[in-house]
């Protein structure tokens, strides 16, 4: 059991190592989620716009 706790203590530097890893993952995942959300809403917007302008369906990009 203590192997796990020693691992998480990081030789007493847990206060620095885990926040560092935590921060990197939060920012990276946040970046990813924001980018994907941006893509989703653009795709919905585009689909809605193309419904309204049937004449312009020429080249469908999504």
């Amino acid at each position, binding site marked *: 059991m203590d192997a796990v706790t020693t*691992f998480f203590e*990081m*030789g*007493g*530097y847990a206060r*620095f*190592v885990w*926040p*560092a*890893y935590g*921060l*990197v993952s939060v*920012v*990276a995942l946040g*970046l*990813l989620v924001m*980018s*994907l959300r*941006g*893509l989703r809403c*653009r*795709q919905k*917007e*585009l689909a809605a*716009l*193309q419904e*309204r*302008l049937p*004449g*312009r369906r020429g*080249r469908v*990009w*999504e």
Partner: protein
Amino acid sequence: MLGLSTPSGFIKVSKLVSPWLWTACVLLIGAGLYFALFVSPADYQQGQTVRIMYIHVPSAWLGMFGYSVMALASAAGLVWKNPLADLVAKASAPIGASFTFLCLATGSLWGKPMWGTWWAWDARLTSMLILLFLYFGYIALQNAFDDPGRGARAAAILALAGFVNVPVIKFSVDWWKTLHQPASLMKMSGPALHPSMLTPLLLMVSGFTCFFVAVLIVRVRTEILAAKIRALRLSEIHAAQGSGVAG
């Protein structure tokens, strides 16, 4: 390469490449984390805090890699008037800026136990701080214009001017650093890296780079669709005018 230079070409290629990139990214970072946290030994001086290096160095690398991608894309946008290159430059700026910020944050988290302060005017950290401001300048200039094309071209010139200045800034900061304080106590990445430390570092760097390219592709596709939406809206207004005046 030609397939990539047109928007529809880019979207086709990106659809093919994305899944591979994401799997490569997950595998590399997974293996990297495993090696970094469990296998590689603690540093005799720094103890366990050396593990922060495995995310600090890749972040620094992505910060600089992002800026070079931005500068190259801007050059392509300016020289060959390729609108897709402008979009790649615009998409890579926020990613590069976030990783430059992460590099500074992990740097100070690593510096605290070693130097006792959250911020040390170490030459590398200071250069990354300046790079972060170059990113902010680029992003602010990009969005400071109503016409996106105008913003993209102005920001492209700034990216090139900044790219030319980065080595001068790096040199002047190193020179300034050595003037005020002999070589810092703790060389950030330590002496020649022991292989057991090198493999996780390489895994993490390549994993981060895959992540960068994958997110870049997502953002570029978003920019392409945004441009398409703008074009459709304009043609909608144009059509309303057009039908009004039988040309």
